[in-house]
């Protein structure tokens, strides 16, 4: 019974092996972040509309929250009241206002710097943080009428450019608004589990199924960073073998069987971004003109390797693939799905484009950020750029905290379009959180983390920060029944120098 206890260090006779099979993964993706195709997609719009939209859509809920909190607030016998426009604030009056935060930061990238770049002798190093070391950053609250400088302890390192908040305070003699307390929109309504599936069933006239199969686990991995070189990291192979259930003895293979879906949260390939830097581009333009496919300026080996890995997994496990910052997708958020032409083998597991709206078992190349229902839970995930960018605004803050605040601000990319590239949305901003997810994950973080946050209406959200696989060799497993998190660590004992 060696195969049962996992000790495979034994010889013949070889026993027949139990064949295991996976359960289904109830999966229905949403297409929230898909941009219009072709000629419908324009880039002429002004970004100002995004801020306007954001404020318009969030104002009522922020106002509601502020009213609940401050309607009986009194300070020195003076009752706080709401002022509609930030420029209508009177000096010395206790009031509260609603607006979008804008922070003027010393080290924030500036478009004018880009233009003056030609005159620099050496470019300054890329910034880790936008915060100026001397702490002279100014914070402002902005609405349609204008801007108001705000100060106060309640603000320090708590807000970033682009989030909408209500601030309670008084205007000082120097014209700045001293803030005592702040309010934000907090978590929106959270759908019930299976809500969309149930309503779909109800609409189609079928009986709403009460009993569903027990859900399995979802594996989340990010930052595979496949280089396509010959000595690719063996950990990648171990990962594939683990997911397909070939690695380890029977106990581990049984555990791997419970996984019913794999989510790849960005940065699957390293250095495969087809967008050249300005210098490279100029150099290439000056060079000889090539017609057709030029192997020298595009290295296809990362995507080929990724394709073969994917097709290995896909025979056994459905995959949801999010692009990331280093993947060959567009750079501006929301990143559109990686094109199936990159995956000549794996795309046979994907639905043909015409049926792309249907749920599927196979390869689903999706947007970043992405939203959808897996086993009834609403899942929201990003490749991690939003969090990286936001972390540049603040100090000593964990990724999980940032993720929590994004949900509470109801905006998963508040710093877009200021410091994060973003499509100029015109009529609707999908980056605003309309339905509170049950699970919110972000890929390519520096370390693993998971926590549960609660909202005012008993919403519970599981936040998961997924580390880069290339650094941590870690896979996050999420039980879709209990929402319990566990990790699988793949290690290689490097034959290092003996100590």
């Amino acid at each position, binding site marked *: 019974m060696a195969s049962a206890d996992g000790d495979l260090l034994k010889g013949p006779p070889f026993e027949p092996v139990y064949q295991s099979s996976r359960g289904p993964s109830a999966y229905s993706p949403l297409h929230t972040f898909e941009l219009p195709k072709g000629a419908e997609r324009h880039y002429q719009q002004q970004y100002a509309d995004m801020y306007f939209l954001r404020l318009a859509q969030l104002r009522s809920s922020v106002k509601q929250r502020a009213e609940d909190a401050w309607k009986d607030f009194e300070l020195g016998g003076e009752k706080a009241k709401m002022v509609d426009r930030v420029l209508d604030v009177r000096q010395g009056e206790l009031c509260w206002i609603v607006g979008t935060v804008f922070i003027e930061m010393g080290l924030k990238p500036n478009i004018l710097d880009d233009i003056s770049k030609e005159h620099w002798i050496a470019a300054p190093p890329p910034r880790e943080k936008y915060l100026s070391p001397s702490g002279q950053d100014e914070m402002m609250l902005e609405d349609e009428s204008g801007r108001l400088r705000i100060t106060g302890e*309640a603000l320090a390192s*708590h807000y970033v450019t682009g989030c909408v908040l209500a601030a309670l305070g008084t205007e000082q003699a120097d014209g700045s608004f001293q803030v005592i307390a702040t309010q934000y929109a907090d978590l929106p309504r959270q759908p019930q589990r299976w809500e969309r599936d149930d309503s779909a069933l109800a609409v189609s006239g079928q009986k709403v199924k009460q009993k569903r199969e027990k859900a399995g686990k979802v594996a989340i991995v990010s930052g595979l960073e496949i280089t396509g070189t010959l000595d690719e990291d*063996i950990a990648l*192979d171990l990962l594939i073998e683990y997911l397909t259930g070939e690695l380890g003895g029977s106990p581990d293979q049984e555990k791997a069987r419970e996984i019913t879906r794999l989510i790849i949260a960005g940065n699957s390939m390293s250095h495969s971004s087809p967008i050249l830097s300005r210098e490279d581009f100029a150099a290439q333009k000056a060079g000889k003109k090539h017609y057709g496919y030029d192997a020298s300026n595009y290295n296809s080996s990362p995507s080929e390797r990724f394709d073969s890995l994917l097709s290995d997994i896909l025979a056994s496990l459905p995959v949801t693939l999010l692009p990331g910052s280093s993947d060959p997708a567009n750079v501006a958020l929301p990143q559109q799905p990686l094109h199936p032409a990159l995956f000549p083998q794996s795309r046979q597991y994907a639905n043909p484009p015409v049926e792309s709206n249907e749920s599927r078992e196979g390869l689903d190349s999706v947007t970043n950020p992405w939203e959808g229902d897996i086993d009834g839970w609403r899942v929201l995930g990003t490749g991690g750029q939003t969090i990286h960018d936001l972390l540049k605004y603040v100090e000593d803050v964990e990724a999980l905290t940032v993720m929590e605040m994004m949900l509470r601000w109801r905006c998963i990319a508040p710093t877009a379009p200021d410091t994060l590239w973003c499509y100029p949305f015109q009529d609707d901003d999908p980056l605003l959180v309309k339905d509170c997810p049950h699970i919110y994950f972000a890929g390519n973080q520096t370390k693993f983390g998971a*926590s549960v946050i609660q909202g005012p209406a008993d919403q519970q959200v599981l936040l998961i920060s997924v580390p880069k696989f290339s650094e941590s060799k870690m896979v996050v497993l999420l039980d879709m029944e209990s929402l319990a998190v566990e990790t699988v*660590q793949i290690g290689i*004992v490097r034959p290092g120098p003996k100590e």
Partner: protein
Amino acid sequence: MTENYKEYLAARVLTDNRIVTYRLASRALRVNVNIAKQMLHDFYLTQNANKQKSVHATFLLTGKRRNPEHTNGIHAKDGEDTFMHSSPYMSSLPEPEEPEEEPVPVTSMVLVREEELEKTKAEFEEVTSIHVYSLEPGLIENMNMLSVCNQEIAKDYINENPLEGWKTYGSIHNSYIKRRTAKFAPPPSAAPKSAPKTAVKPSAAGPSKEKETAATATRGSTSEDNTSARSTPQSSSGSNTLKKSDSKSNLKRDRSDIFRSFAKAKAKPKEAEKSKESTPAPPEDEPMQDMSEDEADENDAPEIAFDEQKAAAARKARAEREEKLRKMMEDDDDEEMVDASPTEEKESDDAPLDKAPSGKSEESEAAVTVQGGRRRGRRRVMKKKKVKDEDGYLVTKEEMVWESFSEDEPEPKKPKPAPTKSSTTAAKGKKTGKQGQGSIASFFKKA
């Protein structure tokens, strides 16, 4: 099969001095991976019992580790897998929840050489499974070497149906996974094998030819795609040389082959002639002239006088190639093939592959197909090109360029309705001059 594993392993590890992983062994011997692991172990024991240190092994340990931070060699980051708790820093946050200490369970899978096995084992609190991962002829320094075996699997066993693999190899079966029929599949690895000789030639033969193929080949397609694409027209041209006067350059011949097929339809050569006579001779069109000449003389006799025996012998191979190329063409969104009439297909047994390009060159309108809800095709667009002539004047030329498009791009403003129109404009040629060209330009305005 299960009995000759020793021979296989001996041949691979001892004779060939190559690494073998359990996965590769299971593929090669067609056994379950778990049995392959045991075979590897058995072989490891017997060999090393015969002769010390003749085979080196790596092992895979799974289980719970005691204290990952203190492990030597493992990545430094893996100690940080603690449960992070939300720590709301907002003063106004309603409920600062009580952080409950509940560590996330970590399963470790560690690949280790036999030297470090015992030491690593000691670090485990609980070992759930252990097996031989790979055998190699000697000590290995770089564990990444092992991934070569998996790349070998990917290369050598590509023809196996991955959805059937679970039966033999024991990977986890998923009955919900469906694979589309391999209609759009890249050609199997057999393709380069079948035509390795021809694959080399054409790349050297004609850069212009390559341009053509490059235009049709998908950018992301595998190298097999490219080689098979190139090899096909070359081989057919090779058979043609028998009848040819051979005064033409390689380049011309190549091109002619592409376009030869439209010489077969009776009406078409005339059209080609016309265009030949009247083309205002922009540099792009020059080779086309030669081609139509080729077609003209080839069309009369050589097609019929073609060595029948040879053709019969080559027919089968050609049919295969055709199939492959068709696949590839479809892969390339070249759906014009569908437009080709079945009669034509019968006639042009010699060069069936040329159909797609021929269709393109004759009909200058966009060959649009709606396939799977997507609009794809190829259209001819007028492109302006500024050239400095010998007197130093800037001359703007307009050239027709083929351009593939898909639904992602907007439709051309006025899609050209019929091929007749193009032939008439071509016939008018220079005379119509500006006027006629202007109208074409508006037709093929680049979107």
